[in-house]
């Protein structure tokens, strides 16, 4: 005699609603508190202490000594949040964003502080220095 222990469950399931989330038609499953999404980098707050460069296991950060900031490519990020915990000024934060698919791995949304932006910051800093010298 064969036993079919699943049969009652299966028949019951047939008359229940599907327990799924039809994503593109609806909102995705909400992220929990403290979710580790894409890094958000605030250039203004950065003081260039290089703690994030030391602590990052994936080599996301590159220190730019000329302007004393870091540039980062989150394409490599492993979402461990160590840079956020170690950042003394709170320039690095975790966001809720997790839909990060892209056709291009060097897409603009993965890169903070492009070389052009770095140039601009460099110019601004030099202007500031000149202004300070003049005022002295």
């Amino acid at each position, binding site marked *: 005699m064969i036993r*079919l222990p699943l*049969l009652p469950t*299966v028949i019951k*399931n*047939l008359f229940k*609603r*599907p327990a*799924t989330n039809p994503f593109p038609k609806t909102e995705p499953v909400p992220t929990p508190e403290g979710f580790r999404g894409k890094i958000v980098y605030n250039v203004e707050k950065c003081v260039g202490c290089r703690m994030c460069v030391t602590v990052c296991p994936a080599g996301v950060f590159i220190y730019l000594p000329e302007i004393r900031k870091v540039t980062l490519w989150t394409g490599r990020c492993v979402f461990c949040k160590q840079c956020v915990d170690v950042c003394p000024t709170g320039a690095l934060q975790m966001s809720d964003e997790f839909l990060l698919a892209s056709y291009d791995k060097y897409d603009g949304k993965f890169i903070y502080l492009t070389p052009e932006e770095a140039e601009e910051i460099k110019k601004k800093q030099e202007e500031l220095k000149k202004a300070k010298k003049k005022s002295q």
Partner: protein
Amino acid sequence: MKIAYALLGLILLYIYVSIISLLFSGIDRKLVARMQRRIGPPILQPFYDFLKLMSKETIIPSTANFMFKAAPVLMLATVIALLAYTPVGFPPLFATKGDIIVFIYLLTLADFFLILGIISSGNPYGRIGAAREVAMLVSREPAMMLGVFAVMWGISKLNVEKPFSLSSLYEHNIWELGPMAWIAAVVLIYVFLAWLASEIEVGFFNIPEAEEEIAEGTLVEYSGRYLGIIKLAESIKEFIAASLVVAVLFPWQLNMSGIEGYILNLVIHTLKVFVVLLVSKTIFRTVTGRLRITQAINVLWTRVFAASVVGALLLAMGVML
């Protein structure tokens, strides 16, 4: 003239059955999904799959010989030819005395062509699948043959026009043979549902195509157009096998003359086929896993064939007494 009409009927039947059988597999997938609390693909998904397979690149392995390309076409041709001998609510188009032999022959031939195509591919995984397919084929058919022959023999005692033809099933049926035959019929329902499950290889008997066990088994090397043809032929074969079960066990039809009578009976038959496939395919494959090949063959000989012998003997006793 009569042959021309029969050919026209065969073409129409082929179109109808290929649409309906693909639709059935879509409904089957949807129901299985709902039984597992999923939403499932749209019901027309098998049609999209078929069109996609037809437009994909077809890759022929360098080790394959010409039977690899010929086998899917021959399989589909066999299945289409089989449609001419299938009872689909009205007697088969080419019904003659003893056409049950042709029916069983063509039904197994389709599987043999598939096996031939697989072993021509040169892939050892495919050969393992083919060897298992042969073992299943040999084990499952005797039970069905004994059941069908017993029923037809019982019916032929009631003075039918064409004894041992599938058309005789519409003149008299197993339920007219007395109380002893009713018990036999219940046993035969079990035999035929088990045979159907092993014929379309679902549930316990999903062995030759076992994805997790031997890498897709019989269908490893097929891709593109040939895979599409094989899938279509298999789903038509599914409809035909279920049609046989329906015709042998539940052949109740409306008595209506004219073309609308044929169409109405075809629709009723289709609904009955759907119910039989629902039990034997959809529910069976959702609630059970696969057996090993040795266990499956053991089940087919000791449970199904033995039940078939018991059913046939009961039926014979019912007819004789």
